[in-house]
């Protein structure tokens, strides 16, 4: 007989804390740093779009969550392993799920099909606590639930895996702020922090495709994607090409529409159509667009003095 488990949906229980912390950050910026913008910026339509995207993500989870849950439950019945739910197992699951998050997030930036879902999280030109809530509506369609399969097959209960995933997202809420500059060195060296995640949201050539961590920044250091935040290169937030709309439907679906338009152009080979779906964002069959590698190369052509510095090592 396998373990029966249930855990609370931590992301919905965190909603009142999200609202309270947004008000706190907003008040802090307005009272202390409004003119300088040193602690971050807020703009009404941007924040409203982010909050609506967050609400839509919850609705999407309610409507489509059964697909992921059904898939994980199916795997749970396949595996003969059951690790139970001791404290050690919960901690191990949390750490391994964070490794899972790192790779899903990395795919989210390097595979256009997954980027189409994740891009909306990067579409704000602001970096404040509302940006954390600018979440995807279409994550189910990326099929990235497959990356959770090893955890279930190893014997971690689906409810525990989803609980750890929820805790991971809740952790990441507070790091979406400019109000915190740097934390103690020991913390910055192990944990994902506002400084590390500002880099991840930077559209500067230096910061593209860096710092994919959820909770532990050690994964980026281990897999060679860590770039520190440099005081002389302040992150410029948003997309390489920023959106010209605040309409949440367009924010949620614009990259999917882009994939469809690109892959169904006349005169392409099947390989080119495939690459428009799954190559890194910025791929084009005629070289008319830039991938992050091309953007970095062009930056170095304009600024050769940056070669060999953080984010431009190779």
């Amino acid at each position: 007989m396998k373990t029966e488990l249930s855990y609370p949906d931590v992301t919905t229980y965190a909603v009142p804390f999200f609202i309270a912390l947004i008000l706190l950050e907003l008040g802090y910026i307005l009272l202390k740093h409004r003119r300088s913008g040193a602690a971050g910026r807020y703009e009404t339509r941007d924040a409203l779009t982010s909050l609506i995207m967050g609400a839509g993500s919850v609705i999407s989870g309610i409507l489509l969550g059964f697909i992921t849950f059904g898939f994980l439950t199916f795997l749970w019945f396949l595996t003969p392993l059951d690790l139970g739910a001791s404290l050690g197992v919960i901690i191990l699951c949390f750490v391994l799920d964070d490794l899972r998050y790192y790779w899903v997030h990395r795919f989210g930036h390097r595979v256009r099909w997954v980027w189409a879902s994740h891009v909306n999280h990067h579409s704000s030109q602001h970096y404040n606590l509302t940006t954390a809530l600018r979440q995807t509506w279409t994550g189910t369609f990326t099929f990235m639930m497959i990356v959770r399969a090893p955890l279930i097959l190893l014997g971690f209960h689906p409810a525990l895996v989803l609980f750890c995933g929820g805790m991971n997202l809740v952790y990441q809420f507070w790091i979406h702020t400019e109000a915190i500059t740097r934390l103690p060195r020991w913390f910055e060296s192990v944990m994902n922090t506002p400084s590390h995640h500002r880099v991840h949201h930077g559209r500067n050539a230096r910061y593209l495709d860096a710092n994919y961590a959820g909770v532990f920044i050690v994964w980026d250091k281990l897999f060679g994607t860590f770039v520190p935040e440099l005081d002389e290169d302040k992150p410029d937030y948003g997309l390489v090409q920023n959106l010209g709309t605040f309409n949440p439907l367009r924010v949620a679906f614009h990259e999917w529409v882009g994939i469809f338009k690109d892959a169904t152009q006349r005169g392409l080979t099947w390989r080119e159509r495939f690459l428009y779906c799954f190559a890194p964002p910025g791929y084009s069959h005629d070289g008319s667009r830039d991938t992050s590698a091309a953007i970095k190369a062009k930056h170095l052509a304009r600024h050769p003095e940056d070669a060999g510095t953080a984010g431009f090592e190779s």
Partner: protein
Amino acid sequence: MPLEILGPMVVLGIGGIALLMHFVGLSKPFQLTGEHSRTAWVREVPDDVPTQILIANNQENALLKLASGKLGLVHVMGADTTARYLTGATWHSSNSALTIHLPDFGAPKFTIPLSPQEQANWTALKDAAS
């Protein structure tokens, strides 16, 4: 959390935060100058610098002629900006505004308040670029 609690909390939270921000003045759009327009364009398209810039009187839009000979638009998005080439755009004029449609789902339409004189200036720059 029960939906009957979560739903109203989310709606009131979003509405309350948006109203608060609006009433403390955080809805004021960014105002473009010539230098802002240049910087905003180069920020997104560093390899094709502007050679001529026309800023709308409302200071929320700028038409740019670029070194490549193409036309570009810088548009204020709240406190920030976005930039687009106008290749493939269609232009529709009325007495008080110019509407530019783009084949871009993420930036489909820009409605730009322009006086008849401004519209004539923008059209002249467009014709010079084509």
